[in-house]
């Protein structure tokens, strides 16, 4: 029997009863998660029960073989209920994809994927570092051979400026220079089991929004097998997988947040209309303007998904490392992060003080605060500066 490459389509995955239960649970605890700035453990447990943490793992290793469009759909549905749960799911799937697409023939990583699906392991990432100025493509910390280990064991220590859900994950993917003598851009990605990794939080995560992602900084110290280093250089993993997956899945988190705010504004306008049947309330006009923004937002994401799916495998794969693709995927992130805030802000205008309230069915404060994180996750200014340089050589539309 041949193993199906892809288990089911997105509707079937997200329509399953167990995933629907996870969505309900995420919605139920979203407010408390935000207020207390705590990890959404109920929702993540429900995702585990639904097998959702293994969706991105190929069928041959016991996962669902979900593609980026399936994962985007699930991320969107989660983020509409609880942005933190949506973001945690998205980040986890980004780490899974980085392994799946770059493990080459590594037996260790194939075995790991089987465990990840079977045990529903949650993976966090330590790609940030204090001292590199927010540039994921540079590292200070380096991988070293463990003295006296005949090259089969390695060790590292890294001061990561933020690790989302670092204290709640099972495993950690860390970027490092490939050796103590390597250039800051010559990086690799290492997977360590958090049970064998020392991680010490530095600072606390008490933020304006995305409070439930629990993302303080950590000092990470680990010793592991040399086989736990992904065989591909991080530069390739980043351009072919981690960056496009991040920007596309994050954008679906933000679309989810914006849709939640839009839905609340729409309910508010309907409520007003019911009070004076026959008259269209003035706020309805604002809502119709907002629906134009939402249509543009969705179209932006659809186009990005379509392009990535076309290029992800086979001959198209090298196109993902071109200047043109880098410009386009950066544009997606910048545009999506800006429009998410604008939608939430407009929803606030529509709902007025009921929107400004921190509770109630028309409250959009949480959504607005959460949406503001979008422009900061890999700062838009950094991406604009990158694109400014890339556009010196890339001729758009040619």
């Amino acid at each position, binding site marked *: 029997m041949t193993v199906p490459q892809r288990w089911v389509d997105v509707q079937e995955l997200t329509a399953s009863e167990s995933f629907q239960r996870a969505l309900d649970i995420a919605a139920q605890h979203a407010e408390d998660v935000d207020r207390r700035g705590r990890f959404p453990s109920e929702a993540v447990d429900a995702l585990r029960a639904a097998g959702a943490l293994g969706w991105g793992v190929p069928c041959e290793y016991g996962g669902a073989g979900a593609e980026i469009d399936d994962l985007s759909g699930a991320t969107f549905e989660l983020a509409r209920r609880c942005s933190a749960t949506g973001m945690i799911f998205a980040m986890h799937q980004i780490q899974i994809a980085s392994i799946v697409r770059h493990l080459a023939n590594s037996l260790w990583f194939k075995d790991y994927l089987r465990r990840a699906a079977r045990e529903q392991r949650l993976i966090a990432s330590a790609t940030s570092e204090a001292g590199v100025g927010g540039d994921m*493509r540079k590292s200070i910390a380096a991988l070293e051979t463990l003295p006296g280990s005949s090259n089969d064991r390695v060790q590292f220590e890294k001061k990561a400026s933020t690790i989302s859900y670092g204290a709640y994950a099972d495993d950690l993917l860390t970027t490092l220079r490939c050796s103590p003598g*390597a*250039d*800051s*851009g*010559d990086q690799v990605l290492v997977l360590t089991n958090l049970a064998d990794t020392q991680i010490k939080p530095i600072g606390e995560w008490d933020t304006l929004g995305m409070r439930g992602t629990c993302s303080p900084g950590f000092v990470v110290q680990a010793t592991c097998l040399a086989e736990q280093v992904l065989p591909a*250089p991080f*530069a*390739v993993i980043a*351009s072919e997988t981690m960056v496009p997956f991040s920007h596309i899945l994050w954008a679906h988190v933000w679309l989810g947040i914006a849709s939640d705010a839009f839905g609340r504004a729409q309910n508010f306008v309907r409520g007003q209309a019911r009070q004076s049947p026959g008259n269209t309330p003035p706020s309805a006009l604002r809502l119709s303007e907002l629906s134009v923004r939402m249509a543009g937002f969705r179209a932006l994401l659809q186009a990005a998904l379509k392009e990535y799916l076309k290029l992800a495998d086979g001959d198209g794969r*090298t*196109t993902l*490392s*071109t*200047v*043109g693709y*880098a410009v386009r995927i950066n544009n997606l992130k910048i545009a999506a992060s800006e429009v998410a805030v604008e939608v939430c802000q407009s929803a606030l205008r529509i709902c007025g003080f009921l929107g400004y309230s921190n509770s109630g069915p028309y409250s959009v404060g949480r959504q607005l605060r959460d949406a503001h994180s979008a422009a900061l996750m890999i700062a838009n200014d950094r991406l604009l500066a*990158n694109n400014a*340089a*890339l556009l*010196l*050589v*890339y*001729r758009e539309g*040619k």
Partner: protein
Amino acid sequence: MKDKIRKIVADHARLGVEFERVEHSTNLYRAGMTSFSSVALMIALENEFDLEFPDGMLSRNVFESIDSIANAIERLQRVQP
């Protein structure tokens, strides 16, 4: 041609290693070239050889070494004489 490319790489790639140690096959990215400095290198190469790299060629594997750059320029010179 490779000597010309070598000089442009020396001037623009901003490598983190001593340039004498860079061979024609040395991976420039691993030697410290960033995407920023690779853009400066691309512009300088377009200027020097009076050509335009099409989008499909503006990728990491094309600019990763002096050899691969020379290869790309030779291919372009055949179509954009």
